[in-house]
């Protein structure tokens, strides 16, 4: 079995093949969808096989089985050696299963959802390219290759957000091409952090590979940097006027910058709500289940770095809590069905970031998995709703869809309950694990309380959303809603089952996931942590779920019964707006980050660039300095040209005088 390690190459190979085939050969829409889905399903199978192969590997002495398959040396200049190698360990396995599993379901769903849409072949090609890039991200055995995937998913995100690039605006008033550019550029801001972090890691730790690598193709060994993190634990960097900063802290903060970009954290989350301009399956796959979680994966992967810098870990937790709260509040004030889910995603990503920031990696990964399932479910169900509601996305135009779309309703409800963290759905277990870790193990009770508060808000806005979409009367009667076909509902049911039983994978007391991930993170030789479930944790869990259930019920009740529910009208502000005023507006516009960036950065930049190009460059450097030199020469020539009279005798005279002078000089000297 152990010789079958090459099988891990097939995981990304199939989506890549699907992309190439779809790009260059397929012109038929149905075939494209089948090819793409088939490729991802095959990748899923390969991921399962790879896990079997991984488990069959001999356990190395230092612990932690992993497969490291180096294809070739990517860059090699002097001591700077980066292999083009694939890594497959337990962390990668979990991510690969999520990416290919949820990915496969969403691909199949897309065949139905995108039917009749424009540019389907391209759409499926991009989806496959995305799966490939995402797999590169999680399978890269060094930072640089991870960055290839990191930027690759950014590219796919750009392409898919811009799927409707020829439209001026899609609901709710987003310009798709602008949103695509915004997503990429904002991500680029984070990527600069990644670039600098990589440069710093190599210059301080001498390698970009995560783990020690088997002798490379030419027999030399490239060391892994994670094992040497302690070398820089106390090293300081002089920042001049800004004092000093620990090297590890600096590297972690730079990585954190990258994470805030890709995983949509404060302050760089602004691109994600606009990313909803893409088709709904894209929102489900890329902007909820997989790509945005890559920041969480990254922090999990380089966990030793963050453990070496408590300062940076504190920053991570702060950012995560802040994001979880702000985004949850913003989600309350949205009317667009997908925007609610978008802000909800940002908020849930905050939870995961908090978890990995505290070092509770398996809790973070657990939430990543369950969230991947139930958020994909919610988005796909939302897609089904949008489909059934004839492409309306505004929840004020819906209402009472429960009876018209029963399957969608039930699956949506399951997703909402899971998201709200209601017992016994998947979200409850994973969220509870993070909160209780923060309270009991992480020593951050304030953070835990804020997270519980955020979880209550989560339940509230999901209650509100369920009420607005499925309960009451249909407020816009210009269309007749209908249930979606089987190709859409079957994936919903599969995901709904996952959202119900997903908690099992790390059920307290069983903690399969923790055990599975243990070899990746544990110090070599240490036995698995024995997590006994204490009474305190139990009480906390009960309290949390009760609070969530109560606020979820409140949200549902408020928007189904009484005066508030009656005042929900098409085009009118939310009834709660009159009680909250500007706070509500703030939440609605995502706390004004967009406004701030627009006024503080984008516009001054644009104005300054015009000045720089048209005035400073054209008139200053070119006009004054360069042409000025030319003009100076011209002036000098102007004063000398008078000697050129045009009369031959003048020339002859000057010539003669010259001859006389020269002859005189030679004769007399």
């Amino acid at each position, binding site marked *: 079995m152990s010789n079958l390690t090459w099988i891990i190459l097939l995981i990304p190979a199939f989506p890549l093949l699907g992309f190439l085939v779809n790009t260059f050969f397929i012109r038929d829409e149905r075939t494209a969808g089948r090819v793409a889905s088939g490729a991802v399903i095959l990748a899923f199978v390969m991921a399962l096989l790879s896990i079997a192969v991984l488990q069959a590997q001999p356990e190395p002495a230092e612990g932690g089985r992993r497969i490291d398959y180096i294809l*070739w*040396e*990517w*860059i*090699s*200049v*002097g001591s*700077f050696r980066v292999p*083009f190698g694939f890594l497959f360990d337990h962390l990668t396995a979990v991510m690969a299963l999520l990416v290919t599993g949820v990915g496969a379901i969403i691909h199949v769903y897309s065949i139905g959802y995108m039917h009749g849409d424009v540019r389907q072949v391209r759409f499926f090609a991009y989806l496959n390219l995305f799966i490939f890039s995402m797999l590169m991200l999680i399978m890269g055995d060094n930072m*640089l290759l991870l*960055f*290839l995937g*990191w*930027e*690759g998913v950014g*590219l796919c995100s*750009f392409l898919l957000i*811009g799927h409707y*690039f*020829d*439209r*001026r605006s899609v609901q709710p008033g987003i310009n*798709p*091409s*602008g949103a*695509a*550019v915004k997503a*990429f*550029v904002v991500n*680029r*801001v984070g*990527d*600069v952090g990644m*670039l*600098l972090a*990589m*440069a*710093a890691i*190599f*210059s301080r730790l001498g390698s970009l590979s995560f783990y020690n690598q088997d002798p490379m193709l030419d027999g030399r060994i490239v060391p892994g940097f994670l094992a040497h993190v302690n070398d820089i634990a106390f090293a300081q960097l002089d920042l001049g006027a800004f004092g000093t900063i620990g090297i590890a802290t600096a590297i972690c903060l730079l990585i954190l910058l990258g994470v805030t970009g890709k995983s949509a954290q404060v302050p760089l989350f602004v691109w994600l709500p606009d990313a909803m301009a893409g088709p709904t399956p894209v929102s489900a796959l890329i902007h909820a289940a997989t790509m945005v979680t890559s920041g969480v994966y990254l922090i999990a992967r380089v966990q030793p770095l963050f453990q070496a810098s408590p300062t940076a870990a504190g920053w991570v937790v702060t950012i995560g809590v802040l994001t979880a709260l702000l985004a949850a509040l913003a989600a309350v004030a949205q009317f667009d069905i997908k925007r609610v889910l978008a802000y909800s995603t940002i908020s849930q990503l905050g939870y995961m970031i908090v978890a990995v920031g505290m070092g509770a990696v398996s809790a973070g990964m657990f939430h990543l998995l369950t969230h991947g399932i139930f958020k994909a479910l919610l988005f796909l169900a939302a897609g089904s709703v949008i489909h059934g509601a004839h492409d309306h996305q505004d929840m004020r135009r819906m209402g009472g869809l429960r009876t018209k779309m029963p399957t969608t309703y039930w699956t949506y409800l399951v997703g909402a309950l899971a998201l709200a963290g209601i017992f016994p759905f998947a979200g409850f277990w994973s969220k509870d694990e993070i909160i209780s870790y923060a309270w009991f193990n992480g020593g951050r009770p304030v953070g835990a309380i804020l997270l519980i508060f955020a979880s209550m808000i989560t339940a509230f806005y999901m209650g509100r959303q369920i009420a607005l979409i499925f309960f009451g009367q249909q407020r816009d009667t210009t269309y007749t809603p209908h249930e979606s076909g089987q190709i859409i509902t079957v994936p919903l049911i599969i995901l709904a089952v996952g959202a119900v039983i997903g908690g099992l994978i790390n059920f307290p007391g069983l903690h399969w996931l923790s055990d599975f991930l243990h070899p990746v993170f544990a110090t070599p030789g240490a036995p698995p942590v024995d997590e006994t479930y204490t009474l305190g944790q139990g009480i906390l869990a009960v309290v949390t779920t009760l609070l969530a259930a109560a606020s979820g019920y409140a949200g549902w009740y408020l928007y189904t019964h009484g005066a508030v529910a009656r005042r929900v009208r098409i085009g009118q502000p939310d009834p709660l707006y009159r009680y909250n005023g500007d706070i509500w507006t703030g939440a609605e516009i995502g706390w004004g980050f967009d406004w701030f960036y627009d006024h503080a950065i984008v516009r001054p*930049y*644009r104005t*300054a*660039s*015009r000045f*720089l*190009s*048209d005035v400073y*460059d*054209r008139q200053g*450097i*070119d006009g004054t*300095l*360069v042409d000025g030199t*030319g003009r100076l020469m011209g002036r000098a020539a102007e004063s000398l040209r008078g000697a050129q009279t045009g009369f031959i005798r003048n020339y002859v005279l000057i010539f003669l005088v010259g001859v006389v002078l020269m002859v005189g000089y030679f004769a007399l000297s």
Partner: protein
Amino acid sequence: MNQLGFPLVSLVLWLPTLGALALLFVPRDNVATQRMLAFGVALVTFLVSLPLLFAFNFGISSFQFVDSIPWMQSLGIGYRVSVDGVSLWFVLLTTFMTPLAMVMTWDTVRQNFRTFQLLLLLLESGVIGVFAAQDMFLFYIFFEFTLVPTALLIGMYGGPDRVRAATKAFLYPFAASLFMLLGIIGIYLAHGQQTGTYTFDMAQILASRGFSATPGATGQPTLLLTPTVERLLFGTFFIAFAVKMPLWPFHTWLVLAHEQASSDGSVDVLALLMKLGGYGFIRYNIQLFPEVSRWAAPVIGVLAVIQILYAAWCAFAQTDIKRLLAYSSISHLGFAALGMFALNELGVSGAVFQMISSGLVTGGLFFAAGMIYARRGTRDVTELSGLWKVTPVLGGLTLALVFASIGLPGLSGFIGEYTIMQGAWLSTALGWRFVALAAIGTILAAAYFLHMYQRSFMGDVTPPNANLVDLTPREIGILGALLVVILGIGVYPNFMLGPMQPTMQQIAQVLGSAVAAVTP
């Protein structure tokens, strides 16, 4: 005689010139024959240049395939051409791009087609000559000679303001390279006075400086210069190459030249993107004067960082795609300058990679701009809209090139940028502060390129853009060939970096001792 026993470099160098002469015998009206002849010669030159790569001895750092004929013996001038691990790639880039540029001109040049092709071929010879010349005198001749076809091509076939652009593109670099002539004569005289041999041969001068390129022969330096003289000589070369490359703030002629050069992009690619200045920096400033380079590196590093950010910032405001590309190319060269003056193996390798990559990627984008112009008659992004929908193939290929230029990993642009940043970070001359600022350039690059792409290729289709036809197979072939190479060296950059290594190690070794001598 060289290792092949066959003057391969000379053949590559003079074949285009022979082709140009042959073109004169084709009747003026017979455009079809002219096309095939010019393209055929360019293609054969490319094929003939490939054995350079296959026969190249990757193990040694010195000049290879040397063709040496005494020329003006009394002055120590010889016809000496050769390639080493650095110039090999520039020669190959030139021979690869020329046939593509030829094909681009087929539809766009309506008048004086023969002259255009003839000048392109002469230009190719000139550019190859710059890279292959091992004799400083020969180098100077080729360096100046390239200006002649360049100015004629811009002045005869350019846009409305072509004469001003051609004048500037000729006079500015020409005036600057006169300083270099002084420097060359200075080295020649100093070498003659101190060692007794008057020669322009780079290999011999390097050996006399103690920087021998032949392994094991590194003897004591016999050519010793005082620091003042050394800095003056460095300065003369610096002025010439800073204008030619160009470095900020000597860049304005390039923007105007790119804007006015013929719309199809052939002149931009062959004359203006060929990085003669950057090559000169590595070959002369850094190799001949490592200690002065170390002394000047922080200042040049600052210039480079300003250049990266300044050019990217200016690019954001451009509406003419070719002007935007000109600024983008300048911004790329800022990275290259940063890498060179990191003065270590990583930085210099990255700089060479970046210049080659920029030649391919920006060249491809200039071709794409030419294809847009050929269809729409304008390059103004405010008048273009929704082209991706109307011409999907053009849109897709352009997008790929745009992302290559932005520096998407897996394509060639990223490799250069990253190795340069890593090199500059590790450099004792520069350090992380330079990198932190330069890295912002990657955000700005994404901003201006995607802004341009969004305005011209995305959005709804306005009526004037509605009936454009998509690319012909020939045009797809041009961009496709470029993209294959860009992807190829992006995924397997060691293809280029590997052969460079011996030369780079040799440079790095010399630089290392010089840097150690200067650094307190």
